């Protein structure tokens, strides 16, 4: 997805004289061509994430369209108050693009993990949160909204689904129809979900936008059902309140498979963490059976 980010950006900046990019010493090699070609608007600003957000807010106030890019924990957790006030409260446009997701850089340890990013950012009113599961989904979503004047967060991952879906900002995709339960799969955990539920009588809804949350598609899917399984590639329970608010008059059962709220102190590969957490066909199938039979 990072390569796609570079190529989408390179294609857009050719035509958009307002587009700018601040790199916090991450992705500098990838963006070397843009840095060379547009040194005033594409720059490695340094390792100072909090002020970078403030600087970007000043650029946005002046009519530029800033993109800010670094690893998720530094972008979101370190600079959270700046994002909240300088963009959220001011309600001005920016594009925050992170890499690393929850634990893509598993071997670098907890300082480089960020399963809390979406849970944190969804508390900022007006913040748009996008979780593409494939490079071409990032491309179409970014092109669709990068200059809409709102603060937007794109959560990129090293992990990608094999096939892309035709995604629209703020819309969920109904990928499979069934009657026993509804499964919500988010971003790059779609493939494992499709595999786990291929023989089950369930709806599968794919969300590449978290905020604004597509309540309508969920409500329609849940008209004759009461069971929901959420496969969320960040802290478990992150989107539970969005589901509850969408279905406020309905009694429902929710089962979430997500990252547990504990520090992931092991290293290794992201896939090893997937296995330990339960982002596996076997585990999702087992939990889905339990939910359907409950």
């Amino acid at each position, binding site marked *: 997805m990072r390569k796609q980010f570079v190529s989408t950006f390179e294609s857009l900046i050719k035509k958009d004289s307002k587009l700018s990019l601040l790199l916090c010493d991450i992705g500098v090699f990838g963006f070397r061509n843009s840095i060379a070609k547009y040194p005033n608007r594409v720059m490695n600003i340094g390792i*100072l994430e909090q*002020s970078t957000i*403030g*600087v970007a*807010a000043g*650029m946005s*106030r*002046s009519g*530029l369209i800033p993109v800010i890019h670094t690893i998720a924990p530094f972008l979101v957790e370190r600079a959270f108050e700046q994002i909240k006030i*300088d963009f959220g409260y001011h309600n001005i446009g920016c594009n925050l693009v992170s890499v690393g997701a929850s634990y893509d850089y598993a071997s670098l340890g907890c300082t480089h993990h960020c399963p809390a990013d979406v849970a944190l950012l969804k508390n900022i009113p007006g913040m748009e949160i996008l979780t593409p599961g494939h490079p071409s989904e990032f491309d179409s979503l970014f092109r669709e909204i990068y200059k809409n004047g709102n603060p937007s967060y794109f959560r990129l991952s090293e992990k990608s689904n094999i096939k892309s879906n035709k995604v629209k900002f703020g819309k969920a995709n109904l990928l499979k129809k069934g009657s026993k339960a509804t499964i919500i799969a988010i971003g790059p955990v779609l493939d494992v979900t499709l595999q786990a539920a291929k023989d089950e009588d369930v709806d599968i809804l794919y969300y590449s936008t978290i905020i604004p949350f597509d309540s309508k598609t969920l409500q329609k899917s849940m008209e004759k059902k009461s069971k929901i399984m959420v496969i969320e590639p960040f802290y478990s329970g992150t989107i539970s309140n969005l589901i509850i608010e969408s279905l406020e008059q309905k009694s429902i059962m929710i089962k979430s498979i997500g990252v547990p709220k504990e520090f992931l102190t092991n290293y290794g590969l992201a896939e090893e963490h997937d296995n330990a957490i339960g982002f596996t066909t076997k585990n999702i199938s087992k939990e889905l059976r339990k939910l359907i039979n409950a």
Partner: protein
Amino acid sequence: MGNIIKTTAHKQINFLKKEIAKVSYNSQEGHVSSAYSIMDLLWVLFKETLNIYPRNQKNSDKFILSKGHGSLALYAMLLENKNISLKEFRSFSQYKSKLGGHPDSNKLPNVIASTGSLGHGLAIAVGIAMSSKILKVENKIYCLIGDGECNEGTIWESALLATEHKLDNLCCILDMNHSGDRAIKLSNLKEKFLSFGWAVKTINGHSHKEIKSSYKAFKKNKPSIIIAETIKGNGVKMMENSHAWHRKSPSKEELDLILEELN
């Protein structure tokens, strides 16, 4: 002529200070002494320096009050410039007021940044100054910070960036009223900013002559900082340099004394 202008300005500033005291008494809110410490700085900025204030005019100069708790002084200048009415000024901190304890850019079209959490305004000012360079806009960006605010890491991050990007269109005004001394004494701020590559000028922050000349003294390829030595609570003896008055509103008896002294 100069003396007449100065006297008129002084009288008007005292009028505004009295309004600040009254509104703080009525609401029992506000950082009065912080506002008094920057009144002269803002008066000269708004009356004699800034080139057209509205924030949406591309070519206008810009101002950010990063030490947002000095908001009453900013509101007083908006009142002076007829950007808000006296009725609006007197609504300070009421439930539906546009004027809160910290300035809100969503409610006040002349305010560029909502500040209050310290250390945000200078970074935004750096971003605006960088944008002016990118977009080839010939304007000046002013940002007022406090000495206590200089404890924030973002001030120094922004200071690095301003030098790196040669922001000679940026002027930071440091309200050096020493309110931060009780935590960390920043007695060598001049050397600190010099070592960060800024042009530094130290002035008496209550001398209009010194303020005015410092606001125009930009140096090529460098950001400027004016270290304005000020007195917190300036003009009211019981308030001057008293930490007790940092967020204290006057009682009726204190209000009467303040009004009398400012007369």
